């Protein structure tokens, strides 16, 4: 179904929707990143989406940005995840199961996980979480990430195709520790749904502070089994240009590896 969807969209301009609410604060960077990749982007307030429930289905890509939705009150992303689930749940699930790309970054990842869209959108029940960092502090720094490529030497996730084995991205979160019970964790590993792991600069296992939160299996990002729904704690939208990297690393002389993530989704739909 995902492949057919990509063919239908071959000629049209790709439309991205970014959901925002009180406390969202990475929506402008995310919009810029998608626009640089050739998409048309709307930042839409959750209240507008709730009052027009089918609007979300007119878009090709759904993005939930980082920030502190509702002040991170109760727990990070909890209130917005419930709001989306209880008021837009059917259409969000339909969106995910149609094979359209969905990305949740940082607070957006917390929201996708807590509403149950990751790691198993078919069930749409919360089976994992992003809990308090082991340090009990807000952790903010550049970290190295190993791109998992266990699916015939490729990544399962459509968002992370053709990335180097190790990239670096900035993190900024207080609740980023990925937690699930052993069975769920084993399933995620077996299905190659782990997309990024915290690592050292050579791609080897690492410890705090390069692993900023103590995630189980050092998980920094996961996708669903189809590879279209992707969530990660680091911020690719903050690494669009090589100039944003501490060592000015990137590709094509200009771009940061974060851009490649957004470009992958747009190219997939063209």
């Amino acid at each position, binding site marked *: 179904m995902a492949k057919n969807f990509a063919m239908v969209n071959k000629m049209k301009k790709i439309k991205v929707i970014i959901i925002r609410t009180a406390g969202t604060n990475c929506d402008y960077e995310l919009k810029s990143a998608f626009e640089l990749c050739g998409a048309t982007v709307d930042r839409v307030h959750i209240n507008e989406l709730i009052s027009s429930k089918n609007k979300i289905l007119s878009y090709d890509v759904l993005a939930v940005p980082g920030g502190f939705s509702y002040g991170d009150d109760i727990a990070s992303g909890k209130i917005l995840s*419930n709001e989306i689930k*209880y008021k837009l749940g059917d259409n969000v699930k339909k969106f995910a199961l149609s094979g359209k790309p969905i990305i949740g970054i940082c607070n957006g990842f917390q929201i996708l996980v807590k509403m149950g869209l990751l790691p198993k959108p078919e069930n749409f029940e*919360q089976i994992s979480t992003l*809990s*308090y960092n082991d340090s*009990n502090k807000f952790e903010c720094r550049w970290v190295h990430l190993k791109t998992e490529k266990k699916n015939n030497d490729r990544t399962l996730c459509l968002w992370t195709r053709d990335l180097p084995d190790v990239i670096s991205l900035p993190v900024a979160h207080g609740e980023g520790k990925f937690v699930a019970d052993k069975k769920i964790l084993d399933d995620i590993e077996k299905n190659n749904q782990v997309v990024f792991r915290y690592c050292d600069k050579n791609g080897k296992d690492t410890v705090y502070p390069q692993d900023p939160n103590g995630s189980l299996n050092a998980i920094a990002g996961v996708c669903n089994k189809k590879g279209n729904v992707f969530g990660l704690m680091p911020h690719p939208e903050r690494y669009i240009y090589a100039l944003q990297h501490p060592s000015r690393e990137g590709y094509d002389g200009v771009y940061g590896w974060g851009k490649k993530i957004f470009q992958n989704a747009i190219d997939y739909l063209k």
Partner: protein
Amino acid sequence: MIFEIEIKTKKGFVDPQGLHTVSDIAGIGIKDISSVDYVAVYRINGNITGKQADVVAKELLSDKITEDYTIKQYNSLDDKKLDKNSIEVWYKHGVTDTVSESVVKAIKDLGIKEDLVVKTGKKYCLKGKNIDDKKLKKIATGLLANTLIQEYLIK
């Protein structure tokens, strides 16, 4: 009816707030507290049923993976009994409790339309040697409560 919903880290999971409170207590010179369990407390006052309170606790206030919840029910706060060796911290009357406003909004998102009053508090359950009122007061006033805007309760 008053419900107090307590949220606590499940056994087997790390309770970072509790762990760091132990080291913070050591930092103010009290060395014999061996562990602290941190508990977030939400007091809901209004016309809801026990079943609705359970939905609020399960679907909104606790994390299904890492946290457990307990619901206590009172006709009046005069009926409430404090736990031994615990310190509760609540905002004083008249101080804005911004989290409570978010909780009220989020309860309505669950489809519970009654007008409710919510207060948020924190409970620290201490274990260690020689815990007495003097020590609890020192920990409460020196570390856990900003007494300008918060009150603390000990047994």
